[in-house]
């Protein structure tokens, strides 16, 4: 064996270590698209709220329930669209990379992502039942950030920093209760687009 072969060995070792511990087929483009959906959702939500505020009819009190349902529907639509897009793009990329989409690695990744996320989801439902509406937005950002951070050990580069950014943003937003939609637009919209672009340039292009 000559030196070139040994060099090849080292490269191969590195690649296997990476592939066996990290899921490489996440797509930056799906982050960018999720961000765009979130921004559209935020604008729609904002319009709904403005419409409600300008409503001085006698039905105002009943309409607040209607508004709440509409806002939840908008948020759910954004969530479903983002997850679907993310799944399709990741599936395509994994197929191209010949990486398995369902193996012990992606299982671990999903568990580490879902435990904080579902904790947060239940937490927010309880907040809703208890009518603590103001801290729902900060809570979603914080738990989403924790979920990203916890799953990031199985991913490449920027996901970890996206998680930290969401956590910090969530904590800041606790000081500005009542601006939930603005912080959602920043956290789920702008941050996703920003980190999506960085991720795209680092890992998607080739």
């Amino acid at each position, binding site marked *: *064996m000559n*030196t070139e072969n*040994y*060099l090849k*060995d*080292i490269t*191969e*070792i590195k690649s*296997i*270590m990476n*592939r*066996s*511990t990290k899921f490489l087929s996440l797509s930056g483009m799906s982050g960018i698209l999720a961000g765009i959906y979130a921004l559209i959702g935020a604008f729609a939500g904002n319009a709904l709220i403005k419409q409600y505020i300008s409503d001085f009819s006698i039905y105002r009190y009943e309409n607040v329930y209607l508004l709440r349902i509409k806002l939840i529907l908008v948020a759910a639509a954004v969530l479903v669209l983002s997850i679907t897009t993310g799944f399709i793009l990741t599936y395509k990329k994994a197929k191209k990379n010949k990486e*398995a989409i369902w*193996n*012990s*690695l992606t299982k671990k990744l999903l568990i580490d992502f879902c435990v904080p996320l579902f904790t947060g989801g239940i937490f927010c439902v309880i907040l809703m039942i208890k009518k603590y509406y103001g801290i729902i937005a900060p809570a979603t950002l914080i738990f989403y950030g924790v979920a990203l951070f916890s799953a990031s050990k199985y991913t490449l580069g920027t996901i970890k920093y996206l998680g930290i950014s969401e956590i910090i943003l969530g904590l800041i937003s606790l000081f500005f209760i009542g601006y939930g939609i603005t912080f959602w637009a920043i956290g789920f919209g702008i941050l996703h687009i920003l980190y999506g672009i960085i991720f795209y340039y680092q890992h998607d292009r080739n």
Partner: protein
Amino acid sequence: MKDILLHINKTFDHRIRLGIMSALVVNDAVDFKSLKELLGVTDGNLASHLKALEKEEFILVQKQFIGRKPNTKYSATSTGKEAFKKHIEALEQIIKSSQL
């Protein structure tokens, strides 16, 4: 140069064995199917290399059942990890000394 070559471990002198060890040192345990996918080799080929590593006591084999399906998990022993580390250091030395 001879000193360095002493640490080149004959057991690792094969791409697939090197691949198996690379995966096992960075993971707690890896099952047969994952190893197969990761390295892109056939069942028989992988099994024979795993046997060789097992014989050297570089890896530990755990057989269990998940439901009704048999599942075999492999992990690196401390002897295996140490030998692999020495082997990589030797590789690095060779590459370095040839670049001077």
